[in-house]
């Protein structure tokens, strides 16, 4: 199945195309704050470079985050509208799973980490690889790095775009050789492969309803009137 994969949860447009297990294209465009401006042009150039037209694509995969809230919304909206306009199926994949997938050859616990971008907060999760499949163990983690380290009880590989930096920070607080670092980013082809496997088994998301995986609520606080002490009602 020919699947186009997109992830815009970081400061890049990650775009890839796979035919089942075979990678046809896999590009990472550094965009910083030009993610929205560049996304369609980048998708178009990846397709053309692979000698494909949009009409050849049989399904879409999109990275749901966590990551930059603004960034994810671009990729998720584009993914939803691509599926809606072409009538082809759509599958959203957790960006943490995409990272974990890139460490599937490691025979240890896999811990992908995404920087939440403020105050040292990170998003993470644990995965285990078995027979080329990866399964999430437990819930998503939102907190600081020391809190995550406390949860690590066995040989683990940290997967993140700055995994070495994380390893440097936690180096002394953990048994030697327990943690390895693997520097990887969420790539479009990995999103596409994971989506293809699910789409082929008949699994798909509602192309109108699909929403990003934020893992954190907006921090707005309810307004309380200074004079009446009453909160504005919902």
């Amino acid at each position: 199945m020919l699947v186009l994969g997109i992830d815009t949860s970081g400061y890049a447009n990650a775009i890839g195309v796979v035919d089942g297990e075979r990678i046809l294209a896999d590009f990472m465009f550094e965009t910083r704050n030009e993610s929205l401006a560049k996304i369609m042009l980048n998708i178009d150039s990846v397709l053309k470079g692979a000698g494909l037209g949009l009409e050849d694509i049989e399904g879409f995969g999109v990275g749901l985050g966590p990551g930059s809230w603004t960034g994810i919304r671009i990729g998720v909206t584009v993914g939803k509208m691509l599926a809606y306009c072409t009538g082809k199926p759509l599958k959203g994949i957790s960006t943490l799973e995409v990272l974990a997938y890139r460490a599937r050859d490691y025979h240890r616990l896999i811990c992908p980490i995404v920087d939440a971008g403020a105050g040292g907060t990170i998003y993470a999760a644990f995965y285990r690889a078995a027979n080329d499949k990866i399964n999430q163990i437990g819930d998503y983690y939102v907190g600081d790095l020391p809190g995550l380290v406390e949860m690590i009880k066995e040989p683990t590989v940290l997967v993140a775009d700055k995994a070495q930096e994380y390893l440097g920070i936690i180096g002394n607080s953990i048994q030697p050789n327990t943690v390895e670092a693997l520097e990887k980013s969420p790539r479009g082809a990995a999103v596409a492969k994971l989506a293809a496997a699910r789409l082929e088994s008949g699994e798909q998301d509602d192309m109108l309803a699909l929403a990003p995986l934020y893992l954190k609520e907006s921090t707005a606080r309810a307004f309380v009137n200074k004079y009446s002490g009453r909160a504005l009602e919902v």
Partner: protein
Amino acid sequence: MLVLGIETSCDETSAALVTDGRTVLSNIIANQLDLHRKYGGVVPEIAARRHTELIGYVINEALDVGGKSLTDVEAVAVTAKQGLVGSLLVGVAAAKTLSYVLRVPLIGVHHIEGHIFANLLSNPEIPLPHVCLTVSGGHTLLVYIKGHCQYELLGGTVDDAAGEAFDKIAKFLDLGFPGGPIIDRLAAQGDRKAFNFPRPLLKAKTNYFSFSGLKTAIINAFKHQLATGKVLPLEDIAASFQEAVVEVLVTKTLRAAKQREVSAISVTGGVSANRRLREVFTDTCSAEGIKVYFPDLSLCTDNAAMIAAAGHARLAHGQADDLSLDVVPNVPLEVQHAG
């Protein structure tokens, strides 16, 4: 020509189908008020999240209600300028994808130009040139409309928008959110002359507005009453406040119209739904021999039909954007951008 319009600049997720810039086939508006009410204002992150959840549904419904399919769409117009950046980009991301897949022109529209076209949609006979007051929760602008898509900015607010003053007063008086319709209702039962609130910049020979001092005057009057233990006539405060805002808006717009020697005024934006504003504009303009136009109530607040109409006009002038279209949260309405 069938144009699909998309508007997500603030807290309304909207999609519409408009033919030839004149006939509204559908205008779907998903209002997020319930999500923002307890905060007493629009929370940008909450708005952006809701847009992402709703955008596909409103586009789908606009096509459904309009009785058209995606392949009938001949152009996509989207609000790309002026608004909350996180909100704008959801609409623009959707519009770009539609334009790319359907291979139809993409037009990025300035939100204020959309409001100007809301009035033209309701009243295609408005003569040119004329003076337009755009007044909402986010804007208070006086624009001289020289010709089709030709604008000259005459003035605007130096602090709060008029609608923002309504919201802030309602929040302060514990009346709820949004303030405009609440104060409009309350004011209808109050005495407009109970308090003589200031009319900021009324006499100044400038086309600029200021509503922040008026807000402070009302807060002070309220505190004074609270201190003296009087029963607070909220209806009277609301009516007196509204009267001050209305008088400033009407007087200054009329003065600008006379300066420019035009025979018509258009009033647009969310606050143009205010009943007292319409009443005073209508009475004053009729006494001065100037015609005044308001949009249908359904087109006063943010909606995608007005964006589709504006996009159609720009396309007719040979203006379209390419797929690199980006959002610009704060930019003046272009002066004479017609080709």
